[in-house]
């Protein structure tokens, strides 16, 4: 119940294409869902986040779609660029304990 399942494990997209990464969870106590971007040798950087009372949030080229009934959420990267090549992690925070559970990561490569 504490797991966050992330897919795909790796993704290759052409420049200008749409990158889509999916996550699913079971624990209904999760109340906050951030996405992090991590480059090699760096720590994860907060990209965008959503709360379960919102179905979609957009910031620039990044959009989170949230389906509360299905317990799924996804990250869409529009007009993907080579500079977006990184590992992306979804996460979920437990509302009672404030503990974050991270997905296993998606390695994105955007071809020029």
């Amino acid at each position, binding site marked *: 119940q504490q797991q966050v399942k992330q897919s795909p494990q790796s993704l290759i997209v052409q420049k200008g294409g749409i990158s889509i990464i999916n996550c699913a969870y079971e624990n209904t106590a999760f109340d906050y869902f951030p996405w992090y971007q991590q480059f090699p040798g760096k720590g994860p950087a907060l990209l965008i*986040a959503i709360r379960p009372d919102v179905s979609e949030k957009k910031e620039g080229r990044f959009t989170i779609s949230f389906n509360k009934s299905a317990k799924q959420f996804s990250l869409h990267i529009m007009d993907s660029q080579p500079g977006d090549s990184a590992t992306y992690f979804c996460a979920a925070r437990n509302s009672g304990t404030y503990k974050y559970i991270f997905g296993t*990561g998606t390695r994105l490569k955007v071809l020029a």
Partner: protein
Amino acid sequence: DAGVTQSPTHLIKTRGQQVTLRCSPKSGHDTVSWYQQALGQGPQFIFQYYEEEERQRGNFPDRFSGHQFPNYSSELNVNALLLGDSALYLCASSLGRNQPQHFGDGTRLSIL
């Protein structure tokens, strides 16, 4: 505005030794969480400190301990190091337990 800073950046130890890692939170942040990130995996929650007390703990043995100082900086101590402790150790800070976390670039710990 300095972000989360961690020291040292790299560390090599041998089995059985003890290690102390340090974290300075982002300016204004009072909550510090520590994570272990094994190669190719998502961060795993170790524990969280708020008001100088350990508030939450993940599934890590008592060999992992920590401390938070009055200036909100924090230390992670690991005793009796095992080969499996080799990982990137990340510190994340936030303003309060309910706010988004921001990560440092981590300490890469290698156990020989």
